[in-house]
């Protein structure tokens, strides 16, 4: 009409429309997210059989990202997200913004899978956060309990040499 709407938009809408149409109802049904060794309970999601949508306030708990004006950001990494219109990554319903965690995972090539019956979403490592190990051989940090249940971080031992050994009773 006014301008010729670029074909890309129309084409993209084909894919986006499915996500947007199915993601139309806010759901009170909580979901469980497994990421970074955490079990995260999320109270509010949009009903969508294929994707996980959360309110931006829940995003940091779910995958460490934070929704900023410039996009979804994790430290210096920012994935641009338009927030004045609906997209496959972001929609507004009844004044409430929703963020598509699984669309971000696909963008970042982060593996995930879900048990839909129990509403549990399980996410793998985010590859871009792994480059310090995979390219520079920096030891990935982690925090695990000792036998008394006290949390111990690998980086607590910075300044010492560490022999890190895995074993198992099996």
């Amino acid at each position: 009409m006014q301008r010729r709407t670029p074909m890309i938009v129309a084409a993209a809408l084909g894919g986006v429309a499915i996500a947007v149409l199915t993601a139309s109802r806010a759901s009170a049904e909580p979901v469980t997210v497994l990421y970074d060794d955490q079990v995260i309970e999320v109270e509010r999601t949009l009903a969508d059989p294929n994707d996980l949508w959360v309110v931006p306030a829940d995003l940091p708990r779910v995958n460490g990202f934070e929704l900023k004006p410039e996009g979804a950001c994790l430290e210096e990494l920012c994935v641009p997200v338009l927030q004045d219109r609906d997209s496959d990554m972001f929609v507004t319903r009844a004044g409430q913004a929703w963020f598509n965690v699984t669309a971000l995972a696909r963008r970042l090539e982060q593996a995930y899978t879900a048990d839909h019956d129990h509403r549990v979403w399980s996410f793998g490592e985010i590859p871009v956060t792994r480059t310090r190990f995979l390219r520079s051989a920096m030891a990935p940090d982690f925090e695990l309990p000792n036998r008394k249940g006290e949390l111990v971080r690998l980086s607590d031992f910075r300044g010492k040499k560490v022999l890190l050994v895995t074993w198992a009773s099996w």
Partner: protein
Amino acid sequence: MKDQNFEIITVAEDTLGEAAAGEWYDAANPTYTALIDTTHRVSSLYNFVNVPSAAWIDEEGRVVRLNEGTYSQVISLGQASFGTDEYRPAVVDWVTNGPDSPYVWSQEQVVRKIRRRTSDEALAEPTFKLGVYFYERDEALARTYWERAQALSPDSWNFHRQDWNLTEGLGGPQYRAKRGALGDKDYYAPLELGVEEPR
């Protein structure tokens, strides 16, 4: 070796946590830092596929050596004293000589040694963790996800052995069959303690 600014951290890759690893740790009465890892997080992070595996980490947090199959009495855990102790002198050499130790690898060598994952193997990680999540709630469902993770990542002994240990006990028929099927393929990567590798 404690006074030489050296720490051994052992990580038990056990879904049952203290219940499974506890008696082994008790028997070993360790003086090192003993951690429990119910989701096999460290194996995920370091791309390990079996135990024991080891990373040598220097004072700045750099990995200077990566090994699968780290058989050594330096990490013997009570009854579970592993194989030979040929590994121990190498560790002592590194603790004493730091970057000048011939056992220390260059950054490039370490990077080359890190096991790369296919996209299926990457998907096996969150799939295995679904199994861990469900294990205490619904054992049959947990097995479904563990078997799926095994199919996605057939080389991961972690994913197979954790499952079989909980369902058929140590060294059961499935374990023996898979181990037997290896033929001349290495169960563990060779230790490569030789120092003649290019540095």
